[in-house]
């Protein structure tokens, strides 16, 4: 937790603060912040800017009934939203995205497994399980891919990523992420577009695996 080397890009923290990113990326950002004090502070800075903007906003009169309404409800019972706690290697936001369920792993071949948490027009959010020494086939990215390590570590052309680290892949990155020796590498990956695989067979399998 204290060894996080690779963080969420600042622009994405700002977009998260303002609610301007897809739920897939939002879950990954919230999961990283659950593991990283540095990004929690950086997010706090963006919220401070938002708060200052709120402070200097020109007040608009509210209707006279609004305050009475609010005060009449102060004692009303309410059910707080369920709070999802960390479960094993999964921080609360991931548990929330999985609705409290365990991942249901599906094999992608070569010992690699995935569990798709969500998949829609805006992109996808999935867990990946890569045994030590195993590589994900070489691929590029049609958009943005954020990968957060939850267990073990992996390395690629750009460096090594351990627990809590985030790798940011974009159109300019083509890589072969390979799990390092040790426990299987488990990552959370969020994308806003499909990947571009170099090999023919992974390309053929792409629609099936929704990658």
């Amino acid at each position, binding site marked *: 937790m204290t060894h996080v080397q690779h963080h969420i890009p600042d622009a994405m923290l700002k977009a998260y603060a303002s609610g301007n990113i897809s739920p897939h990326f939002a879950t990954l950002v919230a999961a990283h912040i659950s593991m990283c004090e540095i990004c929690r502070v950086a997010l706090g800075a963006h919220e401070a*800017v938002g*708060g200052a903007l709120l402070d200097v906003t020109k007040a*608009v009169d509210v209707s006279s009934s609004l305050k009475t309404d609010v005060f009449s409800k102060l004692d009303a019972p309410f059910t707080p939203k369920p709070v999802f706690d960390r479960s094993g290697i999964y921080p609360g936001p991931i548990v929330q995205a999985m609705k409290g369920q365990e991942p249901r792993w599906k094999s992608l071949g070569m010992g690699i497994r995935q569990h798709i948490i969500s998949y829609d027009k805006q992109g996808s959010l999935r867990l990946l399980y890569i045994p030590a020494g195993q590589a994900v086939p070489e691929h590029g990215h049609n958009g943005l891919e954020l990968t957060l390590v939850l267990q073990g570590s992996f390395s690629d052309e750009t460096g090594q990523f351990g627990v809590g680290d985030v790798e940011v892949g974009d159109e300019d990155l083509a890589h072969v992420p390979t799990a390092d020796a040790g426990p299987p590498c488990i990552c959370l990956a969020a994308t806003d577009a499909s990947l571009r695989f170099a090999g023919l067979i992974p390309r053929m399998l792409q629609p099936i695996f929704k990658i």
Partner: protein
Amino acid sequence: MLAVRDSRDRDAFSHLFDYFAPRLKGFIIKTGVSGAQAEEIVQDVMLTVWRKSAQFDPHRAQVSAWIYQIARNRQIDMMRKDARPIPEELKAEPHQEDDAMQILAMDQEAQKLKHAISKLSKDQRVAIEQAYLGELTHQEISDQSGVPLGTIKSRIRLGLERLRLELKGLRS
């Protein structure tokens, strides 16, 4: 806010309401929401402030920053089926004698931030507001104002750089 949190003080909450409710309404209307809808959101936000006041930690956030985040969460939740993912709460840290100093320092920083925002040009101010209100994507921002995307992006960047410069001075 601390009186609301620690002694459920309704007078203090009333002051908080009088200060923030009209500002929240003005803020939310800027996202393109009608006045009536904005008031509904303001009501939810102020109730959340009352109910979740135990989570407010003045060492971590200014009241306005905390309320900003509640307002953003509320508005995003309304647009989505699932609740917005938020980070795990930190375990409460023990605060000791520097409490007052730390809170004062945060207050001063917030004052300087407000000052910095008030010195932005109108264009920069609008760009920053749109970025932090977040209803609009960069593409939509440019559609709305009829300015090419490239210009808008750099305007946001300029505004932020300006802010960052202002902020640098107070961090050192």
